[in-house]
């Protein structure tokens, strides 16, 4: 099993690569549509601006291959902006259309607390989760974001609370996504990545 990392130029691909390496997983970077069509598992790491991500995916003609792969059952893990990209749109770049694999839009966290939401926070379990299997209920994960998916639906397996509750972990068939950075979240994060690798096998 080889994990295909979607490299759209601005993401934090190197740190995800290193985290996978530490777990003994093979990975390759994909920057072209044909690499996605043949992928066994896809990972979309994300950091930065929604506009940069969406425009880069479109410039590189990666949108349709990603959607097709996910609809075709290829295991997918979205990280941070990689979670937000799955929705219809984001208030961070209202004129752009997301991957539309999930309904709803990504919104700014309320300014009642310091933003970005940056640092280590805990999760609120909502449903049984495969990604969080074996993770302590009070484990901390590293977040660094201002925008979030605030509406929770059945695919929300864990939320996080910061000013308001938002989607922290979602699982829908072969589609998995986390708002925190598992590659930066110490042992708990490594466990989440290991769980994803097991789901891909």
């Amino acid at each position, binding site marked *: 099993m080889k994990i295909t990392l979607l490299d759209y130029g*601005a993401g*934090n691909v*190197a*740190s995800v690569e*290193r*985290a996978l390496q*530490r777990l003994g997983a093979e990975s390759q970077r994909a920057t072209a549509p044909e690499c996605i069509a043949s992928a066994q598992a896809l990972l979309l790491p994300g*950091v*930065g*601006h929604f506009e*940069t991500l969406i425009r880069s995916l479109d410039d590189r003609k990666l949108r349709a291959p990603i959607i097709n792969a996910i609809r075709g059952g290829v295991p997918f893990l979205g990280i941070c902006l990689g979670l937000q990209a799955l929705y219809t749109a984001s208030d961070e770049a209202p004129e752009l259309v997301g991957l539309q694999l999930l309904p709803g839009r990504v919104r700014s966290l309320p*300014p009642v*607390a*310091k*933003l*970005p*939401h*940056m*640092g*280590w*926070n*805990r999760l609120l379990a909502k449903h049984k989760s495969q990604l969080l299997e074996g993770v302590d209920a009070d484990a*901390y994960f*590293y977040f*660094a*974001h*201002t925008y979030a998916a605030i509406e929770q639906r059945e695919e929300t397996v864990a939320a996080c*609370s*910061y*000013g308001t509750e938002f989607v922290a972990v979602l699982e829908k068939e072969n589609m998995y996504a986390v708002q925190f*950075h598992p*590659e*930066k*979240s*110490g*042992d708990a*994060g*490594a466990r989440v990545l290991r769980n994803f690798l097991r789901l891909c096998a």
Partner: protein
Amino acid sequence: MSLARRIIPCLDIDGNRVVKGVNFVGLRDAGDPAKLAARYNAEGADELVVLDIAASRDQRPTFLETIRRVAAELAIPLTAGGGIRSAEDARSVLRAGADKITLNTAAVARPELISETSFEFGAQAVVLAIDAKRAGDQWVVIVRGGREPANRDAIAWAKEGVALGAGEILATSMDRDGTQSGFDAALTAAISSAVSVPVIASGGAKLPAHFAEIFTDGRADAALAASIFHDDIQSIRELKEFLSARGIPVRLPC
């Protein structure tokens, strides 16, 4: 809102070695950056900062290689700074494995550097480092590694930096740095109250009580220290247990 208060060891880097100093002068060798990074990662540090104190063009490739070696040891965020003068410099540091950059002297000289890097890499990747020194009833910004006063008020500069797109402020008290007499809670609280982003307090830490004070009275979101961790004066684990026992939320290592 159970966001943990962060404990951040800082490695001052000269080429490929960690160095220590008092009030930014009198440097001594403090070890290998990658080895220290691995140790702090295992001991429960929440983040690591590496600063290129030489910040010279010639030394740049060596510093980038140090970032690569340090990043390879970490499963926590890495912030790197020192000598970043352009978005291009920032990109090379982030590509080498840092998650965030710190901007200091170059941002004072040309504040647009903050907006340029924030737009390109996101506010969460841009930390504005402010070295502040008390002058009467206010604090002034000091640049060039603590050597030169800039004609700026530290609190006003923090606000301006955030308005330009900084996602975090690293506030170092030049009065306390290296003294081990405690963080400057007044400075940190003043900045923390003035801005809407997280504030990292730096300079003067020694005792666990200093950390407790900076997280309560100082309203800090994170606290940074260097030599007390390098010299084993304070273990990160014991520090976090101390804070946790006082009701300050921290991420306890397993």
